[in-house]
């Protein structure tokens, strides 16, 4: 039985016995190749559910729109970390959720009308192929997670550059930003009811879509996700102008891991580093 069929069977059961009133999963996109999110409310809609290596979207973001509603959701391992993040931050309720976890073989670079066998960059260095939280698991989890020595190779390369080189690189990248906020809208960790960029008083950043303002936006976005990014890399995938956001996210992820021995979303209980205070913590010297 393929993954899609296992998901459809479970989803149909959940809808029919009214455990949940909606199953959030994936269906085929209009190009006939890729996938897109599906909200299935009726048994006949459940029939459209699929799962394959094109199912890139992190559906956990949608739970923020269904906080009080009983919902089943299909999650890959990275997406399951987003659920833990949102549980940890008291944004969603565990008893409203039925989690269909998928042991993930990695997602390909397939985009609209563009088929690719190659895994997305984040999947090539993924060390979590089994969901960290689920009620029902489909797929075969690997016997052990791979130890990937080169997970931060591009981050290390960036760190190896001079401050001037890094500034020139990021100025060029941010100059392209059109402030569509797709990176924010797709991110399960971005759920402020009023984002700092939309706040008028105090005004943190002007509306101008220009290098200076873009830099403020992109930098603060990354910092707000330090210790919270669960590495689904959806922000980078959706960026219409290809800004390499994962370089920033993973740099901060690496810092938090080294300083606090913490990885976001691995469980729902461990207090987040920036939501706790420990007397013994000493601010490291900055060289």
């Amino acid at each position, binding site marked *: 039985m393929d993954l899609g069929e296992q998901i459809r069977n479970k989803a149909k059961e959940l809808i029919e016995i009214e455990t949940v009133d909606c199953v959030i999963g994936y269906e085929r*996109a209009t*190009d006939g190749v890729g996938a897109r999110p599906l*909200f299935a409310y009726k048994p006949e809609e459940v029939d459209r559910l699929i799962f394959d290596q094109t199912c890139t979207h992190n559906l956990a973001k949608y739970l923020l729109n269904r906080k009080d509603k009983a919902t089943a959701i299909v999650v890959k391992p990275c997406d399951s970390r987003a659920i833990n993040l949102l549980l940890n931050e008291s944004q969603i309720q565990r008893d409203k959720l039925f989690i269909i976890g998928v042991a993930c073989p990695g997602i390909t670079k397939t985009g609209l*009308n563009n088929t690719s066998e190659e895994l997305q960059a984040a999947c090539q260095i993924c060390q979590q192929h089994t969901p960290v939280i689920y009620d029902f698991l489909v797929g075969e989890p690997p016997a052990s997670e791979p130890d990937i020595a080169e997970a931060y190779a591009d981050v290390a390369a960036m760190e190896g550059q001079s401050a001037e080189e890094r500034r020139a690189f990021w100025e060029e990248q941010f100059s392209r930003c059109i402030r*569509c906020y797709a990176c924010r809208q797709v991110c399960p960790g971005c759920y402020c009811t009023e984002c700092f960029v*939309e706040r008028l008083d105090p005004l943190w950043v*002007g*509306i101008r*879509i220009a290098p200076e303002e873009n830099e403020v936006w992109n930098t603060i976005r990354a910092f707000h996700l330090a210790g919270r990014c669960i590495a689904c890399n959806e922000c980078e995938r959706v960026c*219409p102008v290809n800004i390499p956001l994962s370089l920033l996210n993973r740099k901060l992820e690496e810092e938090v891991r080294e300083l606090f021995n913490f990885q976001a979303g691995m469980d729902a209980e461990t207090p987040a580093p920036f939501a706790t205070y420990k007397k013994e913590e000493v601010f490291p010297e900055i060289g």
Partner: protein
Amino acid sequence: MTQFISKKDLLSWLSQLLEDRYLVAPTKVDELTLFRQVDRVDDIVFDFDNTTLSPKEWFFPPSETLFYVERKDGGVELIPATIERETAIFGIRPCDARGMAMNDYPFLAEPADALYRQHRDKTTLVGLACLTTRPECFCTSMGSGPHDPANLDILLTEVADGYIVQVLTDKGKALLPDKLITAADVSPPPVPALSDVPSGDISEKMRRAFDDPFWDRLADRCIHCNICSYVCPTCYCFDVRDYTDKERIERVRSWESCQSPGFTRIAGGYDPRPTKGSRLRQRFAHKLLYFPEQFGALACVGCGRCVRACPVNIDIREIIQDVQQLGVKSEA
């Protein structure tokens, strides 16, 4: 007989243009194709399907200063922004030329937008006919076509060793010297075929679909970013804000989108489009109902950029078809 320019003469003509005007053309930026002001012809990309962002940014930039107010002699002086230099845009596709014509309706309706008018008056459009198309292209269903010369000053169609030239306006005539053009017996390449997206009486169907739960269901999936609005050649909404310091006020406008949560929020906090479904409906109702009512044409040119860039496959082709089917069952 057709008019012809050799590739070599085209390149030298483009180099000459650099001497007295800005030349904007498709360029490669990482893996993207973007219209950029170029300083040398070598940076121009000739082999591209279409640009990542539309050329609207050269008439309606992401951000632009409208005017300054400065202290002067104990009073204040208003200094409007002006566009001094001529610009030629090379490599505009026919769908995007139609997109510019669509934007002319709101921006040039009296009282015309002064800055937009200057951008338009100072810019000459050199189009490139499409020899290939993308799977998401549907310009022929939206009033244009891969070889459509409408709304351009010059249209070039690539053939062996050069281009078939159509000089379409006085502006185009002034830009391209006659001496570079020769008469030649060259047949134009075939017009690539595109899949059909029949829009029928979509405006009327949109009106009837106003209260349909269809929009809330579609909004389940939509993540409400602004990608579709910002890659769209015909989306023209903006916000205006003042940048102030002691000596000067600068009034700036920037792209805005009906998909932003605060877009219609007014003083006192009321928002006439408070739900995601109502905001998503607005985008399609504007393109398929309100704009046609006001100006007589659908505000979509079938460039397919929103289809390609949408992170969750909100596909306007599918919506045009689905909305026409809404209510069909209940009426039967």
